[in-house]
């Protein structure tokens, strides 16, 4: 069992950055631009009849002899959906799968720690939940890291359609992106019409980026079992890498087209680096 204490400690101070004009009305810790009932000072406003007289700042009146209302920032919450691709392609490489779970768990932890509402689904399995309250953060973290459910459907994009529930302000998709782009496009279309900010984190294994084997291999697809016979020589590998880059770039462009934020990570990094550096750099975490 890996030791996550340091990670959790570091994550306590982080929060997800959402550019929101969103509609959440419940109390949370997020600063909403609606001047509301929190304790943080926002600005002064001249009193108009009808405003809450409890908010008049008497110090300012004493100095300026005009009644001003102190406005406080409204604490609002957002709801975050985290969709973790749990198809066989993710589970095949253990390092990748572990990192995926850790990533999902970390994002869930940050969400809960910030008193935001969390919806988590391990897509293509029957594991999902909705949760709120920072008291659950650690438990949730370990729960997601330890997820072990069987895959029921082999297509992430298609299962995603079933996994979508109520729209949330932030949607995070954690996947390896190894599906035809047309399917992704369909999923994006489905997600788009809701007023949400979508992040796509493409997690790829080093073995997929730089295939380590050579010689005559029969490659078996973990999801559909199809077999391809290849003689791996450097020229084929180069072709493959080009193809991979091409695919990833196209995915990125597709995301951009749909206004989806995109981040690509590899499993050669560890979770701390990803959370604290990569995703922070990408703008998801602050």
């Amino acid at each position, binding site marked *: 069992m890996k030791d996550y204490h340091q990670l959790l400690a570091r994550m306590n101070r982080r929060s997800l950055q959402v550019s929101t004009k969103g509609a959440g009305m419940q109390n949370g810790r997020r600063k909403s631009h609606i001047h509301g009932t929190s304790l943080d000072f926002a600005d002064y406003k001249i009193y108009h009849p009808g405003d809450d007289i409890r908010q008049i700042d008497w110090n300012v009146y004493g100095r300026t002899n005009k009644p001003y209302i102190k406005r406080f920032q409204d604490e609002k919450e957002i709801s975050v959906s985290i969709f973790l691709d749990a198809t066989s392609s993710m589970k095949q490489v253990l390092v990748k799968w572990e990192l995926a779970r850790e990533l999902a768990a970390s994002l869930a932890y940050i969400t809960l720690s910030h008193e935001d509402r969390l919806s988590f689904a391990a897509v293509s399995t029957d594991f999902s939940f909705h949760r709120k309250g920072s008291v659950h953060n650690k438990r949730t973290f370990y729960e997601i890291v330890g997820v072990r459910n069987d895959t029921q459907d082999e297509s992430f994009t298609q299962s995603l359609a079933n996994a979508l529930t109520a729209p949330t302000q932030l949607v995070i998709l954690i996947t390896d992106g*190894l599906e035809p782009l047309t399917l992704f496009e369909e999923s994006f279309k489905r997600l788009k019409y809701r007023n949400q900010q979508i992040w796509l984190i493409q997690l790829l294994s080093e073995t997929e980026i730089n295939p380590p084997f050579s010689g005559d291999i029969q*490659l*078996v697809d973990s999801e559909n079992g199809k077999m391809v016979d*290849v003689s791996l020589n450097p020229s084929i590998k180069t072709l493959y890498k080009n193809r991979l880059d091409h*695919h990833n770039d196209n995915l990125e462009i597709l995301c951009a087209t749909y206004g989806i934020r995109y981040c690509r990570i590899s499993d050669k990094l560890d979770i701390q680096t990803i959370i604290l550096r990569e995703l922070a750099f990408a703008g998801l975490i602050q």
Partner: protein
Amino acid sequence: MHLANPYYFLLLIFIVAFILFYFFRKKYTKQIIPSNLLWEEVLKEMRATSWFHKWQNNLLFWLQLLCLLLLMFALVGPYFSKETMKGKQIILLFDTSASMAANGKDFNRLEDSKNEAVKMLQGIQQNQTVTVLEVNDRPKIILHDESDRNKISRAIKDIELSYTHEDWQSATELTASLAKEGKSAIHIFSDGLEEEKMNNLDSFYVEVHNQEQDQEENLSILSFGVSKNDNKVAGIAMVENQTDSLQKVPLLVESEKIVLFQQEVELQPQEKKIVAINDLPEKSYYNAKIDVDDDYLVDNRQTAVFNKQATTMYTDKEMNPFLIKGFEAIGLRVIQMENKEEFLNKKDSIFLLSGSTLPKNMEAPFVFFFVDGKKAEVQTAVEASEDELLLHVDMKDVFIASAMNQTIEGVKPIVKGGDLPLIQKGMVHNQPAILIHFDLKDSDWPLHPSFPIFLYNMYQWLSSQSNYIGDFQPLESRTIHLTNQAADWDIYNESDQLVGSFSMEGEGFQAPKLPGVYQLTNDSDLMYFSVNLDDREKMIASQKSFILNEDQLKENEITKTQSDWLWYLLCMLAFLILCIEWEVYRRANRV
């Protein structure tokens, strides 16, 4: 059904390899990866752009076409024209007489003939058979109707000189009996064969290959002999210069590696000269040699074995002086001994004895007269049988009054009077003996002219029974008489090498092949004998090659068979192309 080339079953190896090839196609190690999506795209892309693939269909086409073309060429059966031999049955005769040992083009003439024959036979085809005969004094069939080329060339290479004189008469008779009219081609390899000798082969196609050389130089010792006169040994040698130029020839006589006589003889072209050699020391054998390096070396030497004929006769005191006189007249020295026992142990002599009973043991041949003892009257006329002792001896009118009747073991009567043996001859005490059962006093034979002739015959027979085996021709068979009755003898040559052995119980004695002097020995006795060439072999014969009866041979209706190696090559190429094709196909399926 039979199989002509069962060795081709070995090609099964290739077929097995081919099958294994298919089974053990490239093994792909399985590897589960997350997704094949991109790989499939990669391969699709590769397939789309691969020049190999574009080509590949065409390549298969071209390869298969090439393969078929090669097969067709192979079947067409190209061959280089070789000289084929005429005749369905080919008969080869090889002359192995001594004259074929003369220098030929490369080696000696027999080797040249063998090489020529082997080269001729390279053009032989499947349905031609070969018969090989060796011609010497007794023609021999070496191979009969053989088609296997390896066997034929091996048999020809194994033919060796026999140093005898060739007997063409019986050789051609044998050939004529083996040959088939119209189908046989006879090839004779010799040196000096003339057309006249080929009478028996009139109805056959004969090609005579005479080993003719431009320059043939030969000097030869035609004959050499020694004899003893009054304790002195003298020899005579006849030397011939067969070349066209003046020659100075060193002649030497040696024995047991010591040179006894040496002289340089000057000879005019084609001259024969007799050289007298006097005062030779007494040895068992003499070798005469002319030390020249001519084209034919075998006739440069001759051996003479010294015949120690008995020249002394021992007799006792009571012997009839008439007999003594008679023996002295033919050249024997007769010595009368005082004591009988004393001289009975002498060797190299013959004995003349008389008495009533035979002596107990003898070491030498003898004549014994039965003088005392019971006599019986000879009733009938004297009958003589055919015997070498009675050569030119006419016993018809001889009167013999009475004779001793004694049966002795080991002797046979050669003259009888009725049942009474009068003169017997045989081996007594392992020595040649002549027993005369009557006293000369009782007969009138000494008055007949046949009497001294008989004495001489007796002397010749008795002395020839001594240890002189004589002079042989190469491979000559003769029965020899040995006084030592031991069974096994060994034959050694001049260099003390064992060349053979001889057993008294086996077949008759056959002389070795190479001319020279030999020793016949067992543990106790040592005798020399010589092997010399036949006189007719003492020169190099030389004739041109010729062909007889060319029209006799009907043309062969054989289909020309293929040259072996060319269609092999084409088939191998076709097979190689096939292999390349498989490899291409295999790669095609994979990528």
